């Protein structure tokens, strides 16, 4: 039973770390995008589109990590 418990712990810590990474990434991205559209409001639409695409890519990597954690937790 004990190795399984450690597996759950690993899955939990892994999920938390993945979310921290994803959150930091998207946070930095959003900050940069806000600054860019603040400096140049005329390209705000384009910046927003690029931001959403980049956020989706970061999110995708985070979901890969979360999927691994789910598989770990349900094994």
């Amino acid at each position, binding site marked *: 039973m004990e190795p399984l418990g450690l597996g759950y712990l690993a899955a939990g810590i892994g999920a938390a770390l993945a979310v921290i990474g994803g959150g930091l990434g998207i946070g930095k991205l959003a900050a940069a995008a806000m600054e860019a559209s603040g400096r140049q409001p*005329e*390209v705000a639409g*384009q910046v927003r*589109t690029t931001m*959403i*695409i980049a956020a*989706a*890519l970061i*999110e*995708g990597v985070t*979901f*890969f990590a*979360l*999927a691994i954690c*789910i*598989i770990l*937790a*349900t094994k």
Partner: protein
Amino acid sequence: MKETVDSLQAAHTLADTLTSAGHGGAEGGEGNVFASLLHHLSDTHEVETPFGAIHLPQFPPLHVAGLSIDLSITKHVVFVWLAALLLAFVATVVARRNARRDVPTGFGNLFESLVVFIRDQVVVPNMGEKGKAYLPYLLTTFFFIMVMNLMGLVPYGASATGNVSVTAGLAIIAFVMIQAAAIRDQGLGHYLAHLTGGVHWALWPIMIPIEILGLFTKPFALCIRLFANMLAGHVVIVSLIGLIFIFHSYIIALAPVGFALGIYLLELFVALLQAYIFTTLTSMFMGLGMQTEGHGEHEEPVHGS
């Protein structure tokens, strides 16, 4: 495909794990309520209606080359068909109505604004004027995913995109379209030359496997992103509602219901956003494979204005 099957099983076992956790947290009848709430997320052989559950026909699995393939109709299959029928019907009616008058009104106007948005903001900037040839596929993808996502938010509905097999199917179509667009535009020779990455031939044994892997990771990420986003939102709502059954209290119910409403509204946004993201990324990947001569032009007017 192995990973896909694994994560499908993972989703099912996740539902089972959460169900048993619900049983542990609450005793007796309430645990069953929580379990039946979670049951709505997984793919089952029955469709719930206000008048009771309808059991869907099950067929014996087919045996092809040592694999047993179960082709029976499940809840998510029904919702994929429903979405397809609904979309085909609505799109046909709207297209007929819009064709009859110069300026579309009402629902036709909404539909047209979405179509024009995808064409002018997504397809043309990513793929150039040549991309308009692929517009029918990309628009179908967008509206199909959007309708499937939104169906999960209707009472008694289920979002088929919360099933990894559905998103894998969409991703396979996207994969074929991305490669087809690249080969059609560059020619097969140039397409294969692109896989070498333009490096010295001595590095080809390293470069070619990496480039081929790169071809597959893009649609795989599309598949996982859509699936995880749709499932995660539903799991959060179920977990919040499940708190009521764990705490056995009417007073505590106020907070989870409020939060669940907030998440529900977020889901409404995510349903549209994920359809947009899937379409944008597909058109971007298609555009990367195509030599878009118009890349520079589109940035010009924006800078000038």
